[in-house]
């Protein structure tokens, strides 16, 4: 399993020389399996470059997993090149809403005055799915999702394939559910998604002092992210969903703080950076 970061910025794109190190594109992660299956997690602006790469590779089948429909996770979809290729099939998965179907909610962004092309005119073959309550299988991968603490219907995703487990929770504020560090895992938001994952991408938008001013906005401090990774038993934490006002030099301080908080020497938390790739595989047998 190969995990590639195409966008890791939160809230709004933040391009420019001060953010070039980690990148300014909003959330988008590619997961490619050994059998060639391609999963795309979220459709922030990072999906534009990914779309070009997938077209170059001749990818004809894409599974797009949307954690939620806040703009920073959807705004790139309209510029995803495979959408405009009639030879491509895209399955879109997202959280259920009590009000509208996934298709209708996404269709809003494909309509005036936001966009000139209606969803009906998109050439690619699109199928919309509400995420099921129980794990399901796509091209040999076991996929799990579950509601997590964030304003509006929001899920995290867990992908188990090729002997490894990747968990993705880019927008998550478990601190809002109380002192989760003192609870058993069954009472922790998203624990069934993240537990014992080989690799966890988790929201760590703020320093603690910043978080105190933004409680309830749906995001985590670096302290919370490190504590969360510890209680769910994740083996490697990647700090994700960078605040758009944080330049690279500030994010580097965040990374140092995370390493200090974790005390982990072998696999300390690291910053997500555009272009970063992780190769995951089954542990070597003894």
């Amino acid at each position, binding site marked *: 399993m190969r995990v590639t970061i195409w966008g890791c910025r939160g809230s709004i794109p933040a391009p420019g020389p001060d953010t070039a190190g980690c990148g300014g594109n909003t959330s988008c992660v590619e997961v490619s399996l050994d059998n060639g299956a391609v999963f795309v997690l979220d459709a922030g602006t990072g999906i534009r470059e990914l779309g070009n790469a997938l077209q170059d590779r001749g990818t004809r089948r894409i599974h797009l997993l949307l954690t939620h429909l806040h703009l920073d996770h959807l705004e790139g979809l309209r510029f995803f090149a495979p959408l405009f290729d009639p030879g491509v099939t895209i399955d879109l998965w997202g959280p259920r809403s009590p009000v509208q179907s996934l298709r209708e909610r996404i269709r809003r962004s494909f309509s005036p005055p936001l966009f000139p092309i209606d969803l009906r005119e998109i050439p690619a073959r699109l199928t919309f799915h509400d995420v099921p309550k129980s794990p399901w299988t796509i091209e040999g991968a076991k996929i799990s999702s*579950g*509601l997590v*603490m964030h304003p509006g219907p929001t899920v995290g995703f867990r992908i188990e394939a090729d002997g490894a487990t990747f968990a993705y929770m880019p927008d998550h504020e478990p601190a809002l559910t*109380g002192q989760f560090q003192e609870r058993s895992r*069954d*009472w*922790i*938001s998203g624990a069934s998604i993240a537990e014992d994952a080989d690799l966890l991408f988790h929201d760590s938008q703020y320093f603690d002092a910043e978080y105190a001013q933004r409680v309830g906005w749906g995001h985590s401090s670096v302290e919370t992210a490190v504590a969360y990774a510890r209680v769910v038993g994740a083996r490697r934490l990647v700090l994700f969903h960078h605040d758009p006002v944080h330049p690279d030099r500030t994010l580097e301080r965040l990374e140092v703080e995370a390493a200090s908080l974790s005390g982990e020497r072998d696999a300390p938390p690291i910053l997500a950076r555009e272009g970063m790739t992780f190769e995951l595989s089954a542990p070597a047998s003894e």
Partner: protein
Amino acid sequence: MPQKHLILILARELASNLATPTLIADEVGRAVFYNEAAEAVLGIPFAEMGEVDIDDLGASFAPRTPEGEPRPQEDLPARIALDERRAAHERLLITSRDGVERQVSVTGLPLFAHADEFVGAMVIFWRE
């Protein structure tokens, strides 16, 4: 142990910050949490009780009408909220686990994540 639904996690957090006696049950009828205010009514700390079938918990309080007539479990507000998935309310006389007889009003509220996704019930005790 499977993870609790986010709605139950949020309900627990709400209950733990309320001064109103409140109990949370999951979709299969297990009392998965009650708060400190409920402990004062029920007469036993949750930490001591642990997760328990709500019928077993209810029976242990010998619920009865204010006139002293026993009330079957299926007619109690918690059970109605769980079985019929509608709100219910009733005044009851109970004998708490500390041996004290108390008159309480009990309100059972079903919890739905979606119209077709029932996740449990919230039970509120109004001490009279």
